């Protein structure tokens, strides 16, 4: 993966401009900035992962099974929002520091496509199903959880792979 051109040529100047922003330049020129921001990005992965898992495990019919489905999803929600916020807050400067590399990186594009799908699914479809959900898990909640876990796994795995592909 990587090294091939995936995005339209016309988008390249935008990525070059992003890389030359003040934040992008500062992160790139510092020795510590990228690793530290990246480490906090990882903590965000833990927080986001914990919130996604808490809700999805319950939807699968495991995890906190003594609590109604909607309750568990509601408890997880603020941490989900906090996790997403932390990921964006750290992810954007990481991207700015190497925007042109990202432009040529297939994993980056896999992440950029799966991320809005995962966000839309979690804050849209999953929310609707949960609102109408019975207190016990059924085939519908299980399906929703499986799709959610699959989407977030894709986002995370593609994200890690950005660093491995050229």
């Amino acid at each position, binding site marked *: 993966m990587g090294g091939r051109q995936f995005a339209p040529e016309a988008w390249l100047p935008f990525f070059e401009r992003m890389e030359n922003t003040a934040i992008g330049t500062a992160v790139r020129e510092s020795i510590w900035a990228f690793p530290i921001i990246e*480490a906090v990005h990882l*903590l965000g*992965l*833990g927080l986001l992962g914990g919130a996604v*898992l808490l809700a999805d495990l319950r939807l699968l019919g495991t995890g906190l099974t003594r609590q109604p489905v909607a309750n568990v999803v509601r*408890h997880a929600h603020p*941490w989900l929002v906090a996790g997403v916020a932390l990921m964006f807050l750290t992810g954007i400067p990481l991207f700015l520091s190497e925007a042109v590399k990202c432009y040529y990186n297939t994993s980056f594009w896999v992440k950029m496509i799966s991320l809005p799908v995962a966000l839309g699914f979690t804050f849209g479809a999953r929310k609707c199903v949960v609102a109408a959900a019975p207190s016990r898990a059924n085939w519908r909640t299980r399906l929703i959880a499986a799709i959610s876990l699959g989407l977030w796994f894709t986002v*995370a795995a593609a994200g890690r792979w950005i660093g491995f592909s050229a």
Partner: protein
Amino acid sequence: MERFLEWLGNTPWSIALLESTLAWPLIESSHVLAVALFFGTVMMNDLRLLGWTMRRVPVSEVTGRLLPWTRLGFTIMVVTGLLIFYSNPVRYYHNIFFRLKVVLFVVAGLNAFVFHRGIHRRVMEWERLPVLPGRARVAGATSLAAWALIIVAGRLIAYNWFDCDIPGQPGWVNWAAGCPVAGD
């Protein structure tokens, strides 16, 4: 120790793992992604002990129902972590962030031990209180801090900022990294 690690790093499988183009990144990726499973469930448990989430759910219920997933995450972390260490033992042994991580493991382990042997024995008596006992909250905060620092230290192992072959490093860095002293 040094000689054992040198031998370990020269075993054919260690060399093959370090030079592999697919196995090493896949193992490392599994290690990173298991953070979501392990630290994610640990964090939810710690946040419950701090009283920041699921206050009306008894502590033993949160702990008990999440523990299998925490254990699964822990197992993946240990297996993949040991494989990563095995791929380049001498380098990791002399990496100060790796050493910091090991020290923090001891802190996290002691914290869990003290919590389970202490206040957690009477969890049924306090798990429904609006404010949990101080010792339970301290255990939650310590766990959260220790594991977060372990993740940060773990991420920084990737950098060779303080490797032993860098000239002119402060004495304490060489001491912390256990660098062999010239003329030894």
